């Protein structure tokens, strides 16, 4: 077993050397495409952070003062529920202080100063309101009405805060996903072609191997391994790129004024680590698939 493993590894390295140019091209292409895939994830997550408080068609948020009396809170709720022709009462949601605090962790991910000022005790709780009307004026007048209620700290409208961002997010998502899919396909094809070339370069050897009774898998494994390593190498490079990119972005965002909302566009390290693992897996699988297909297609007797 060890002997077979060492044989496969030796052949893989030898083949990689023989085909340096093509191998490097395959690695770079997979690195670029995977970097784009990773960036797509990052951008997505950043926009998600920004939009998390508006998720699920929420059109208006009524913030309630942290020191509100239970009576005032009940009054606000009752007031909201008394408007079934403008507000989708079933979707009305109340986030208490703890839930609001958890949400703020994401909204202010890139703004540690603001975050440090917040605590479960001092944060406003909130009603998430889903309007049934599409008339912005109606929603706006409703908001003005609620601002005057006792215990209400403020009212935010989705229209003011995120319509542009939401549209932008959708556009960026479509473009980056499309581009990364195309590049990923290119990477797979390049790896496939590299392996085909490697097989062609060794066709005499393969012919002899078949005649002396080497099994198909024995012949195939070094080639599949080669493609897998190319994909993985590309993924490792892309992880480095992604790390550097996120670092530069995070420190860049820190330069913006607090409260502009841009600070939400920061993605914390743990999520980035998750993306990197995903990239390694995607890279290895793409490489393995490309070389696997090539080796079963071109190694037939």
């Amino acid at each position, binding site marked *: 077993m060890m002997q077979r493993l060492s044989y496969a590894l030796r052949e893989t390295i030898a083949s990689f050397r023989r085909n340096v140019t093509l191998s490097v091209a395959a690695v770079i292409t997979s690195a670029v495409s995977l970097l784009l895939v990773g960036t797509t994830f990052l951008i997505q997550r950043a926009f998600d952070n920004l939009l998390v408080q508006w998720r699920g068609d929420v059109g208006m948020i009524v913030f309630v003062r942290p020191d509100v009396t239970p009576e005032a809170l009940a009054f606000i709720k009752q007031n909201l529920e008394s408007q079934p022709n403008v507000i989708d009462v079933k979707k009305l949601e109340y986030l208490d202080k703890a839930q609001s605090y958890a949400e703020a962790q994401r909204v202010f991910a890139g703004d540690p100063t603001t975050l440090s000022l917040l605590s479960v005790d001092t944060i406003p709780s909130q009603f998430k309101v889903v309007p049934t009307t599409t008339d912005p004026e109606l929603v706006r007048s409703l908001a003005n009405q609620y601002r005057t209620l006792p215990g209400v700290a403020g009212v935010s409208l989705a229209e003011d805060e995120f319509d542009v961002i939401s549209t932008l997010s959708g556009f960026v998502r479509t473009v980056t996903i499309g581009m990364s899919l195309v590049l990923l396909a290119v990477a797979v094809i390049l790896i496939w072609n590299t392996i085909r070339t490697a097989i062609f370069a060794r066709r005499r050897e393969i012919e002899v*191997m*078949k005649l*002396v*009774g*080497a099994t*198909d898998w*024995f012949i195939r494994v070094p080639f599949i391994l080669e493609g897998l390593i190319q994909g993985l190498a590309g993924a490792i490079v892309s992880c480095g790129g992604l790390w550097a990119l996120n670092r530069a972005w995070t420190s860049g965002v820190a330069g913006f004024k607090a409260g502009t909302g841009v600070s939400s566009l920061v993605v914390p390290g743990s999520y980035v680590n998750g993306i990197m693992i995903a990239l390694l897996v995607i890279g290895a699988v793409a490489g393995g698939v490309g070389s696997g297909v090539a080796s079963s297609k071109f190694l037939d007797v």
Partner: protein
Amino acid sequence: MIRLENVSKMYGTEIPAVRDASFDVPKGEFVFLVGQSGSGKSTLLRLINRQERPERGNVWVAGRNINEMANSQIPYLRRSMGNVFQDYKLLTNKTVFENVAFALEVIGKPKHVIGQQVPQVLDLVGLSGKEDRFPHQLSGGEQQRVSIARAFVNRPLILLADEPTGNLDPATGEGIMGLLDAINRTGTTIVMATHDHRVVNAMRRRVIQLDRGVIVRDQERGVYE
């Protein structure tokens, strides 16, 4: 050891390369397949090691119908056969020792077995002392000896040789025939395709003659004609 039953093989839709061929080769026999170029000699060999499958008929090797064998079994069938070719098919970037060792390595033989069997077989073919040469540093006859060593190192039951003396001068060819004869006397069945009438006439073994894919003669202790 080898049995063909009414075997026909076509390439494309044109005249068959082999038509209705039947013969039986007992264990330990030495058989010449003779005939002009294109008469189907090589095709018969390729049918025996299952590089080709016949359109009709059955090929039996060591008691097994190889046309009914699963593809995954073919490597194990091939381990019981050695192949020798007119153009040697040596790997030019490997030494004599490595070329022979390669045949054992790729079927997963452990290192100590390789270290023991390769020098033995190189000694048998008369190449002791040339282990570290590369194929281009050897004469044609020596290269063919390496190829025979590679075919025989795993002690196969059958040796298939396709024009092994085709590229060699008569004296060198004679040496190769002596070697094949020696291997045959160890009990290895040999089927050799050739159109070299000198070696056939000198050896006086069974001769199967093909003409445009048809067996026209099957003679014990025959000559080329």
